[in-house]
């Protein structure tokens, strides 16, 4: 009892004035979600009140004392059809409305800046392309589309910012993505919304929305190089450059300009070289082999942390748009442990080729 009183006096009263019934609205998405929410709240009110009133009126009007003898009514097809079709119509409206919002929130717009996130028990690690790294706090600029590219080092987590009305699970073994555009500067709650173990409720943090200028300043202050340059170091350190050379002579595919292109695989499929593909090709190189190459790369499963992985992915992506140095040829290929030449003429593009040209022509079918 005394504890409750104490808490009420200290925390309760302190926060009493700050007693919100509605979360802050700080992203372009929030308005859309809230509109649907209010519509549904109104609909719920209408239906619940109608049912409750209906019951109350009927129960009073036909109570035993007033209506000692019931009058049997069998049912009515017209009524049944009415209360089947009208709710069906209403739910279809909600479905389409909600699906449109979902489509909006699952497709990052062009030009979104990218921030990498790694969830681990029990913290959030964020890595900005400019090189800033932070834990449990995420700085983002106001009014700019931000796309989070997220993965987990262990269990499933979920990136949840109530003020942005957005959320996405963060899975081990693959990248998931979520985007938002903040509309109000301030500090907002960041929660892990998928139960992840002991300190699940401690896996919280803040999203700090800053004026773009402030953000620029923050992003550039005191970093030891961009994320891609961190990735470049890892690229050298793990000896990737031995095979993945910036020319046609490497034993592995040339990675310059790879990101976002269609890649023809050994088994004839094509896929888009996205983050998940790059990650998988490092963790499980055998899974998808680029056409013209052998399955000779060792797996880096268990050797590369998710943070290094993120940097490597950022580096490979940067290789495409000229924002990073192409891998320098390091070692003499003859020293290599693995078989030397590709079994076919490598079909990857040469480094100086136009970036926009697809590496492999899309097969006509798809």
């Amino acid at each position: 009892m005394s504890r409750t009183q104490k808490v009420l006096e200290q925390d309760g009263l302190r926060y009493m004035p700050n007693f919100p019934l509605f979360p802050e609205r700080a992203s372009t998405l929030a308005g859309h979600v809230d509109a649907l929410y209010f519509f549904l709240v109104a609909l719920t009110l209408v239906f619940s009140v109608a049912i409750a009133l209906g019951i109350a009126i009927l129960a009073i009007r036909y109570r035993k004392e007033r209506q000692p003898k019931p009058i049997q009514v069998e049912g009515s097809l017209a009524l049944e059809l009415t209360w089947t079709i009208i709710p069906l119509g209403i739910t279809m409206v909600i479905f389409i409305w909600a699906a449109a919002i979902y489509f909006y929130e699952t497709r990052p717009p062009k030009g979104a800046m990218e921030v990498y996130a790694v969830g681990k028990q029990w913290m959030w690690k964020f890595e900005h392309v400019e090189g800033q790294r932070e834990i449990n706090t995420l700085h983002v600029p106001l009014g700019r589309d931000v796309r989070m590219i997220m993965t987990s080092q262990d269990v499933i987590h979920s990136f949840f910012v109530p003020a942005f009305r957005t959320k996405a699970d963060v899975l081990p073994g693959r990248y998931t993505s979520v985007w938002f555009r903040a509309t109000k500067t301030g500090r907002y709650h960041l929660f892990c919304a998928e139960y992840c173990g002991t300190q699940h409720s401690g896996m919280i943090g803040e999203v700090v929305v800053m004026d773009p200028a402030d953000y620029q300043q923050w992003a550039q202050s005191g970093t030891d190089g961009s994320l891609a340059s961190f990735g470049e170091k890892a690229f050298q350190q793990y000896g990737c450059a031995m095979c993945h050379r910036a020319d046609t002579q490497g034993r592995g595919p040339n990675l310059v300009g790879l990101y976002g292109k269609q890649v023809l695989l050994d088994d004839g499929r094509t896929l888009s070289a996205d983050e998940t593909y790059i990650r998988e090709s490092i963790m499980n190189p055998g899974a998808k082999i680029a056409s013209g190459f052998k399955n000779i790369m060792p797996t880096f499963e268990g050797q590369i942390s998710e943070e290094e992985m993120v940097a490597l992915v950022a580096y490979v992506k940067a290789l495409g748009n000229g924002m990073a140095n192409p891998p320098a040829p390091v070692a003499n290929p003859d020293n290599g442990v693995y078989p030397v030449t590709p079994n076919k003429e490598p079909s990857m593009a040469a480094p100086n080729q136009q970036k926009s040209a697809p590496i492999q022509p899309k097969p006509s079918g798809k």
Partner: protein
Amino acid sequence: MATAVQPVEKTNYLNADYGIKSWLLTTDHKRIALLYLASVTFFFFIGGFFAMLIRLELLTPAGDLMQADTYNKVFTMHGVIMVFFFLIPSIPAVLGNFLVPIMVGAKDLAFPKINLASWYLYMIGGGLTLYGLINGGLDTGWTFYTPFSTTYSNTNVSIVAIGVFINGFSSIFTGLNFIVTIHRMRAPGLTWSRLPLFLWAHYATAVIMVLGTPVIAITLLLVAAERLLHLGIFDAKLGGDPLLFQHLFWFYSHPAVYIMILPAMGVISELVTCFSRKRVFGYNFVALASIGIAVIGFLVWAHHMFVAGISVYAAMVFSFLSYLVAIPSAIKVFNWTATLYKGSIRFDTPMLYVFGFIGLFTIGGMTGLFLAALGLDVHVTDTYFVVAHFHYIMVGGAIMGYLGGLHFWWPKITGRMYPESWAKLSALLVFVGFNLTFFPQFVVGFLGMPRRYHAYPPEYQILNILSTAGASVLAIGYIFPMIYFAWSLRYGKKAPANPWNAAGLEWTIPSPPSTFNFDETPVVTWEAYNYDEIEETQEAEVVG
């Protein structure tokens, strides 16, 4: 002892035989129902105890009452016990077990020994789960999500998974028995269109039990195998997909929600007709809605996974299908309400639960629309909004139905009446306490408070205090019936065969019934809920 020596008392299923053995080896569906009633109540109070611990911890924003690990174990065990060992068996295994054979006019379920086996499996599963709970606990949440459950949790995942696995077979046996009984054991003249809606609802429930439960059984077996034998079906390190677990898990666990609510709907159909002295409005629609819910309920499971990383397109398919399942539920609510029209309504305790059920189920169902709405679900899923929603369905719906049914059939089961005014008071307490507990959770959920949080930001505190206050009222509302039901066993008024003047075969036999229910097989010549005929005979009696 006093009752035992009364020579005038007619032989019934309760005094036909004495001794522990006569209970533990019984194949009488009514005695098994009572075994279930005792054990289900036991688990309900254990689960409820954990619920109180959760609410006490959440009274303050800081995690001060217990350690984070303890809290995680507490909400996990609350979920596991309430879902698998209370809600799923509650109405089917207690009221269903007691009533299904009587309502079809049979002497017993089709497979009495399997019925007894199902109770033993339930006890073994429950025992294992309790053992896991005492001996270190479980912290995965009742959802057992991988890879946390397979790789990272160092609690008793395997023991509890196997406990739930065994309990699954108990559920399968119950469902199998119901389907066969309703198909093969009906009394002459009892056609499908004359079945009480309680039976339609139990038939639909049994279909889900039979088709869905095996999938969760195999899924939990895979989790246990991954932990114990290092098989790697869901292991992301091997390329396994954690979402596959979620697909398989929800394939059962979403329809499982209908295992909980459909029988309650069946109870409500019985109650609303009896206390408004009327045939149910739109019998065919209410009956088919049960089957519709059971079938469509199997097509919607991935709406639990909209933010989990499934394909956008699959999410749309599942969202669409989820809206379809809302329609039959709406049909039922409208028909119950319409049943009141031109009735002669009495306000006995069971009817109060009907009113409570319809109101709370309407809110629960409507908030389900929020969660099926893709764009909105992203914000509210995994928050207290979801918690509030499913408690409105499961506590506001299923438990209200269970309590209503228990009050309605208590005279039949025990031969005693309960004290009416106490029962009315506790029905009121349950309704008020429930709303106070769970309504604030909608608000705090939309604010963004994630579920399964041991500590939370202070601005959510006021709403949590309200919720905890409500939970205390709710607890009293649940303890009251426990007390007066026990009291009535000895001191309650003797119940006549048909205290409510209700329709249905179960009211044509003595309270409590004899061991074989019917002296001779009844022949049914009337529709369900023939209250017009009942009212006429009653009038004739009064006149005569």
